[in-house]
């Protein structure tokens, strides 16, 4: 406990500058409702908790950039290493303190995403076994020392975001399909022979249940979210060149046993998204999906039943997104330190929630 307090004091001194312009500096009191990684004004990497008003509850400097995060239970959160990172950070949310670091196995690195099993006992992390050139879901225990207890082949390179289906027994994984090697950081080594796919994996056996490929081999499937009925919405990043006249679709939906369906949108609407979707979110009733596109500086709403684009709204450098049930709204975050609600009722509109002037919110905003 003493160590945690000392750590917090040390961190608090360093974070004062970061948070000074936030207005209300609240490290205690309000409880953490959201998780996100961020960069500070000097380019330093931080792990943050946010309260319901979008104000930081803690801000923990770390050496390596994180990507997505998840609550392990009421007390602990884990922030997943951004690829090709090898450290995931476990944080005690109330104290805002680093509790443990989960290291990748030799010859492997993490890919930025993970989920917790239905019973809360296991973590599933997308992982690239680069020495074997194999995408895997690494299975770890959620209790210290976070031991590795197994792995599942994802049947594709570059596994990125994954989710549990409502049955709790099936994983869906987006294989980005891009060959990389940590020696060349994030350089894409196989643009001509990319093989992205969406896969469903049986958790207990590791069996491949279904594998679907996008309509073009350079459409890298990366981010996804799952509705209560098991429908998956997927956001892609397209590496094809010279396609501005006829841009590829970037947002898809899929239900087990069906086709991978691209949403209907005009060429102009796809073009606005600049071949790049950062995050996907879905309303609680499963009727409306949201995509964020930082390169096109916009967020887009998608009608799930009609399988079509509804409309887009301008938000600069936007990436993180989450559905907030209590607000009946989407919340998005951006590189300008803004948190913005997209309210759906009475008609869709943007509403600025908070702004942390010295922070640049990294992709992925997670509701605890």
């Amino acid at each position, binding site marked *: 406990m003493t160590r945690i307090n000392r750590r917090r004091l040390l961190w608090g001194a360093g974070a004062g500058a970061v948070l000074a312009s936030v207005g209300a500096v609240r490290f205690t009191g309000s409880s953490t409702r959201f998780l996100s990684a961020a*960069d500070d*004004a000097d380019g330093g990497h931080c792990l943050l908790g946010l309260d319901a008003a979008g104000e930081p509850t803690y801000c923990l400097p770390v050496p390596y950039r994180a*990507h997505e995060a998840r609550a392990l239970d009421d007390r602990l959160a884990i922030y997943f290493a*951004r*690829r090709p990172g090898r450290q995931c950070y476990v944080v005690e949310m109330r104290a805002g303190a680093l509790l443990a670091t989960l290291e990748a196995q030799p010859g492997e690195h993490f890919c*930025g995403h993970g989920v917790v099993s239905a019973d809360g006992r296991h973590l599933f992390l997308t992982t690239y076994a680069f020495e074997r050139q194999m995408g895997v879901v690494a299975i770890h225990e959620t209790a210290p020392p976070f031991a590795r207890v197994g792995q599942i082949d994802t049947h594709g390179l570059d596994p*990125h975001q994954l989710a549990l289906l409502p049955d709790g027994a099936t994983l869906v994984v987006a294989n980005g399909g891009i060959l990389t090697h940590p020696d060349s950081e*994030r350089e894409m080594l196989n643009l001509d022979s990319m093989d992205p796919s969406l896969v469903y994996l049986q958790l207990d056996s590791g069996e491949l249940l279904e594998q679907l490929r996008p309509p073009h081999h350079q459409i890298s499937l*990366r981010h996804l979210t799952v509705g209560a009925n098991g429908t998956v919405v997927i956001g892609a*990043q397209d590496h094809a060149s*010279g396609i*501005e*006249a*006829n841009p590829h679709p970037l947002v898809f939906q899929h239900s087990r046993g069906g086709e991978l369906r691209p949403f209907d949108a005009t*060429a*102009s*609407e796809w*073009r*606005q998204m*600049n071949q*790049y979707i*950062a995050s996907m979110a879905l309303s609680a009733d499963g009727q409306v999906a949201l995509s964020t596109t*930082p*390169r*096109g*500086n916009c967020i887009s709403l998608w009608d799930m039943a009609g399988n079509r684009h509804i*409309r*887009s*709204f*301008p*938000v*600069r*450098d*936007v*990436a993180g997104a989450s559905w907030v049930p209590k607000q009946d709204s989407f919340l998005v975050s*951006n*590189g*300008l*330190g*803004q948190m*913005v609600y997209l309210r759906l009722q009475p008609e*869709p*509109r*943007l*509403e*600025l929630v908070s*702004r942390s*002037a010295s922070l*640049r*919110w*990294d*992709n992925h905003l997670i509701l605890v």
Partner: protein
Amino acid sequence: MLRPFTVLLAAALTVLAACSPKSTPSSAPSPTAAALSKTAENLILPWHQAFVRDTSELRQRLESLCQNPSNPGELEASREAWRNAMLSWQVLQVVNFGPIQEGNQAWRVQFWPDTHNRVGQKVEALLEDETPIDAATMAQSNVLVQGLSALEYVLFDPSRAAPAQFDNARVCLFLQAAAANTQAVAEQLLKEWSPEGSNYLETFLSPGEGNLAFPETNDVLAALVSAIVTSMEKIKNKELGEPFGGRPGAGRINPYRLELWRSQLSLPAMQAELAANEQLFATGVQPVLEAQGQKDLANRITAAFKDSRERLAPLPAPLFTQLQEPDALPQLQAAWDSLGQLLPLLKTELPTALQVHLGFNSNDGD
């Protein structure tokens, strides 16, 4: 689809602005506010007005051409009007944020790079089929046929050199529809910037907590610097580098990779775009740098812009033929090297000095 978003955002911003405490207006604007105001009034708005004027002129010239196709002066007058419109566009498109970004309007005006000649193929297909052609259908068509690139093909492509083609009613319908569509894009962009229209001008000039696009003055500066960097990288790497397979003297020369090879306007276009960047820097950024005690960097960037301008000025035109001339290579390499000196100043030193960030998530790639 796009209009309601803008209106909605404007409405949302009004509400937010009403809720947040406004800073008290001071008598003298800050150097940054003054620089941004001058940038909008002396550059951005006039550039949009010029593009409206030149696209309107182009539409009228093409009508005249189609009425008197046998008059030998008409084709040249139309080509000259097209060149003026394209050069106005080269200047305007440097401002790559705000209204131009909604729905990626730029692609509707100019489609480039076009490595597989899709503009030519699509225009030919449209001229051969029998679907109706007018400005309204044009706005909904493939971007390949909508704007100045498609008009360049019909007015300048060697396969369409014969003036007799302008006797063809469908060719004329197409020319006038594409020109009217381009003029409509120009008018729309101006309207979105104008106080009489959507007033993006106010968004640009009123950074603050309630301004979603620009919560701080530095965010406006970041947009300007980012626009300059994007444009200068395009000039160096795509417009000058790609026809040489990378950089002058390095790879296989392919003059068809030149921007605007058909109209042989490649070099004037590069020069106009460079001049627009130099003006944006001198008006919008340099005074801010100097006010922040960064006179040395301001001077170095000013000198580097001047050097690039002077290296581009004497390049032999048209590049379409000069690319292949060994004698021209040293000059082209000198221009390349000069741009190579300028870019790191703009891309690295300038953002550091101003403490602005040129996009975080947009550069993530994850």
